[in-house]
């Protein structure tokens, strides 16, 4: 079984699972990261969001059902989530290196590692509350699940690109 929604909030998981009409077993999803990854390799950034999910919907039988869309989108959400984690880890390594150098030189500066960690923590709350807001707009309708996954993916992609750029503006 493909792992769905690894890091999503319970509300997101609940919203998808509530729709889990068992017409499509998890094993039936035809999904690959390739479409989104190759778009990113072409330097297209945020435009790439949704490419792999779209391809999955096309290739999967029943891919355009609410459950199919939710599943395909979740698989791409996992891809972005792991991208975000690597971008964060690599920026954190740089930040720690900078902090260590500054300490060695006897500078008392604001810690890059600490401020990066704080930012990421507040970003997670911001993301969760924005996606909860977008979910609420559907009033419990079936569109709420895909809407909250789309929100999760969009925000994760934006934050990934932000961290990859060194965390400096746009």
């Amino acid at each position, binding site marked *: 079984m493909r792992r769905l929604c690894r890091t999503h909030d319970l509300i997101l998981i609940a919203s998808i699972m509530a729709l889990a009409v068992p017409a499509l077993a998890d094993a039936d999803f035809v999904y690959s990261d390739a479409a989104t990854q190759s778009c990113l390799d072409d330097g297209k950034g945020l435009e790439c969001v949704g490419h792999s999910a779209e391809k999955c919907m096309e290739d999967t039988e029943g891919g355009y059902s609410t459950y199919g869309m939710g599943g395909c989108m979740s698989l791409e959400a996992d891809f972005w989530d792991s991208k975000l984690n690597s971008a964060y880890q690599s920026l954190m390594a740089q930040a720690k290196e900078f902090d260590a150098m500054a300490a060695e030189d006897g*500078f008392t500066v604001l810690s*890059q590692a600490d401020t990066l960690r704080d*930012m990421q923590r507040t970003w997670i709350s911001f993301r969760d*509350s924005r996606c*909860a807001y977008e979910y*609420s707009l559907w009033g419990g309708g079936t569109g709420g699940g895909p809407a909250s996954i789309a929100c999760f993916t969009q925000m994760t992609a934006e934050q990934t690109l932000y961290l990859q750029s060194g965390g400096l503006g*746009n």
Partner: protein
Amino acid sequence: MIKLLKQSVAFGMLAFSTPAFADEAPSQFLPEIAKSCSNTLGPNTQCIGMAANACMHASGNFGDPNIAKWCLSQETDYWDAKLNSAYQDLMVELQRIEDEAGQTMLQTPESLRAMQRNWIAYRDARCEFEYAQYTNGSGGAGSSTVSIYECQMQATGEQAIYLDKRLSQAMMW
């Protein structure tokens, strides 16, 4: 400055020490630049920074940290006003939609409020991080505080644009 303080009350804007300027504006800030960009592209993050950039150039002292701070804070004010009005209009729309639907359990106004509160915490932490990246950088203290102004403008612009898009959607319901 009074305007900025008023917004601080509503949205918890960090009270950054605005450099002291003479009564006269050190450059010309044209909000029309941001407006005409939005008219052409719609709510788009590409529009963030254009007016501040033009303002820095117009001063004839591009690169002067004090001019940069002034121009950036002008544009932050511009987006902050957009953000405030989009937020308030959106709140009214959500309330209307809930009242019409008779579904107060949807909690949309509450979740909008929670999101905005979390955004403020995120914006402050993000700008603190960007500031930390410039501390002790080659530009020294002058440029490190410029990075806070730039971050404030960027983050405020992004959220204003997001709320603006949501408002257009809500008005169609």
